[in-house]
């Protein structure tokens, strides 16, 4: 009898997910510009895998297939994982990672809305632990590589692991700026010397900073579209910037400046697309600030003192665990209640 309100004005889940994908497009374009078209193959592979595995799992779980496959959430997970993996990662790594994300990270917990962890980060962490070498061997940006691979050659490499005749592996790969920084610092080189390397750009890594800027642009679009709020990205970026600034000011020869940390690694992707996953994140405004600032802090600590060059995945998963606690302790004051 009482089904009011009779009016609704809400975007569908599908339209939200599609706008997230749209917001990734500038980043992808920059990616293609910097690393070549291979990423498009990676994205396609991840998308097909995600949708097939999702459909299969829904069938096994006897859930409506069409309704959930078309919600777009599997594609978002697939794209985020694909963009986090090293470009030119072998096809099986992409397929395996995507399957882990959808099966272990999402469907086994109950599918859309029920995953306590960010599925893409679960898969990323699993791959990083299982295949550390593959996961840390990044190709050099095209402008820096000794041998430039075309789209077809990149595709060949993804599917067969074979490079064109006469091209050595070293000619296409290079250390990422975060990686390079870490190893050089352990060799007691000063920041000044390290920054001389050609892989460093104006803010972060050469080329990588361009992708980061494109993610930032996409992120601002999401805020403008009211798909995400300012809380998470702002707290996350501010947290990284502040802690990096503290270290940098304490010893500029041993710590990179805040801009480098903001425009390197997965910082921007994380700020606008990964920690903003609503399902595995906190829901209160104050909780969002704590969650994001915590991830920023932990990311920095792992980058500087941890065993991996970038710490986003582990930081996100760790704080995903804390979400129920954060939510419980940050309940906002209800109208008419005392503080």
């Amino acid at each position, binding site marked *: 009898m009482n089904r009011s*309100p009779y*009016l609704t004005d809400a975007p569908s889940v599908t339209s939200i997910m599609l706008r997230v994908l749209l917001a990734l497009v500038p980043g992808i374009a920059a990616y293609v510009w910097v690393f070549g078209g291979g990423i498009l193959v990676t994205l396609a592979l991840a998308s097909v895998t995600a949708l097939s595995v999702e459909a299969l799992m829904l069938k096994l779980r006897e859930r409506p297939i069409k309704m959930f496959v078309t919600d777009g959430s599997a594609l978002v997970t697939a794209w985020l994982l694909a963009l986090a993996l090293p470009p030119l990662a072998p096809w099986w790594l992409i397929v395996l990672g995507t399957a882990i994300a959808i099966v272990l990270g999402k469907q086994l917990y109950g599918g859309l809305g029920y995953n306590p962890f960010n599925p893409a980060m679960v898969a990323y962490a699993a791959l990083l632990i299982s295949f550390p070498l593959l996961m840390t061997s990044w190709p050099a940006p095209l402008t820096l590589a000794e041998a430039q691979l075309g789209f077809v050659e990149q595709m060949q490499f993804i599917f067969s692991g074979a490079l064109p005749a006469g091209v050595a592996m070293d000619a296409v790969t290079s250390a990422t700026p975060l990686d390079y920084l870490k190893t050089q610092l352990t060799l007691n080189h000063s920041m000044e010397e390290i920054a001389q390397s050609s892989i460093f750009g104006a803010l972060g890594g050469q080329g990588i900073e361009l992708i980061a800027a494109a993610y930032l642009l996409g992120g601002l679009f999401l805020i403008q579209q009211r798909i995400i709020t300012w809380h998470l990205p702002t707290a996350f970026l501010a947290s990284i910037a502040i802690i990096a600034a503290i270290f940098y000011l304490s010893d500029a020869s041993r710590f990179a400046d805040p801009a480098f940390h903001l425009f390197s690694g997965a910082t921007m992707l994380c700020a606008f697309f990964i920690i903003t996953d*609503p399902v595995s994140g906190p829901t209160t405004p104050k909780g969002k600030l704590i969650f994001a600032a915590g991830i920023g802090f932990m990311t920095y600590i792992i980058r500087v003192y941890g065993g991996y060059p970038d710490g986003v995945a582990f930081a996100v998963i760790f704080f995903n665990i804390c979400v129920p606690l954060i939510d419980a302790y940050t309940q906002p004051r209800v109208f008419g209640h005392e503080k």
Partner: protein
Amino acid sequence: MNAIVNISRLLKSKLARTGLSSFKGGVHPPQHKLESTTSPIRSVTLPKHLVLPLRQHVGNVSKLQVAAGDHVLKGQLLAKADGQVSAAVHAPTSGVIASIGNQLIPHPSGLPDISITLEADGRDQWIEHQALDYLSMSKPELLDHLREAGVVGLGGATFPSHIKLREDARHPVRTLIINGAECEPYISCDDMLMRERADEIVRGIEIMRYLLDAEVCAIGIEDNKPEAIQAMREAVAKSAIAIDVIAVPTIYPGGGAKQLIKVITGKEVPSGRLPTEIGVQCFNVATAYSVHRVVNHGEPVISRIVTVTGNVARPGNYEALLGMSISELVQLAGGRAEDGDLVMGGPMMGFNLPSAAVPVVKATNCIIVPSAEMFPQPEPALPCIRCTRCADVCPVNLQPQELYWFSKSQNLEKASEYNIFDCIECGCCTYVCPSNIPLVQYYRYAKSEIIAQDRAKEAADIARERNEFRLMRIEREKQERAQKHAQKAAGAKAEAGGDSAAEAAKKAAIAAAVERAKAQKAEVVAKNTEEVSPRVEAEIAKIEARRAQKPELSGQPEQTELFAEKQEPAVTSAVEQMDGTQLLSKEKQPTEEAK
């Protein structure tokens, strides 16, 4: 962290500030008010047949004052207020009481309620009535008049107004707020009333202010009603008292009493409390109007303005007689009333009428005749993705996604802890949910479940208390008996020149205690053997016989004792049989006395 949240809030409220406060959240659904505000308030043709529920207000059902067959005049009292929290019902036209009985009423439950059916005689003849000289009356006298005239809140809550107009020394009302916000889409009855009868509303406000002795008086009107604001400003300018007309921002649910009070005064009504506790009282404009009609014309509440809109040829506002059929009203507006799909109230908080034949009541502010595309059936619900759009728009600052989770998983205690009873069911959360989850319905369900559980608990508490009292009474009686024995024994002993009376009393008390323990034990075990079938009784008798023959094989001694005691109560009365303890101790008395 806190600082950042505070700064953002500050910025937000600074932007919204126009000397007014604001509340968090809210939504901007399409207005659809223009359709029903293009023509003036229309009167209705006199209906032949009226149905008047005795419960058109919050509180006790009013007490019937007429019988079937009686002829009544327009404005005549049909049922008077029963107690303070109640309101009277009057005849909206002259005619004959055809019947009194259960009829379908406009209520979300769809259940019928006791109603008076009045057949109009067509003469529409008024009962003798006159204006009141309220300034020369005592305030309680005036309040009684309002109660007997059936004045209730016409904004939809239908709470008896005389209670809210009573002066309370503990919580004096400093600010009187008149609610003309009318924030729900489609509804325009208050808007039109303000446009056309602004002076009468102000007369009513003057009476209310007089009753409450309020210092400040303000009318809040959403700024999407410039004509009403203009009309009210002109009307208050002519008044002897100072009344502010405040244009408040148009945002749903800005017309909620607590929200409007926050916007105008900047103060929040504490949760679960009344506005008077912060010195504010709030009434709907239509209530002020009916106070004026009652006091200055002597007319009880027998009609109200109803918006009829949606899929009708002549959407607009009608001065409808209470009790007239809603389908008649819809026909007047040029619509087809089909059972089941009419909505009473607005699209955000209204409900589907159980039938188009239900009568107009004091709560009927709007009837919407929906077309298929107006209020489409919602898409199938997806799981909650915790996007918190609902939390962003919640005007009470609840966490709807958590309440949904708790309601769905029947975790009612947690739902209470997360303040589900602060939910005003405004529907903003459902309005913005991307997963199409009917959130408000979950909350309504959880609330009713919690209330039902509390009632059950209360009933259990009462039963337990009764039982405890009963046990106490039994104990007391036993002690009284023990005392008697002690006295008797003391008397006997005194005669024999033996032990002191005190010692005898002590012994008697010990004996009584032993007896009680025995009796209790007996009662507990005896339960199983009560009300046994004759066959089993025969069986027991047989076993008893065998035991008597072979005492060495009779098992545990307690059992023998038990059966022996069981045989005794045959002579006791039915009342005593209900009370095993009492019965057994009585049976034992002779033995004790024999000691």
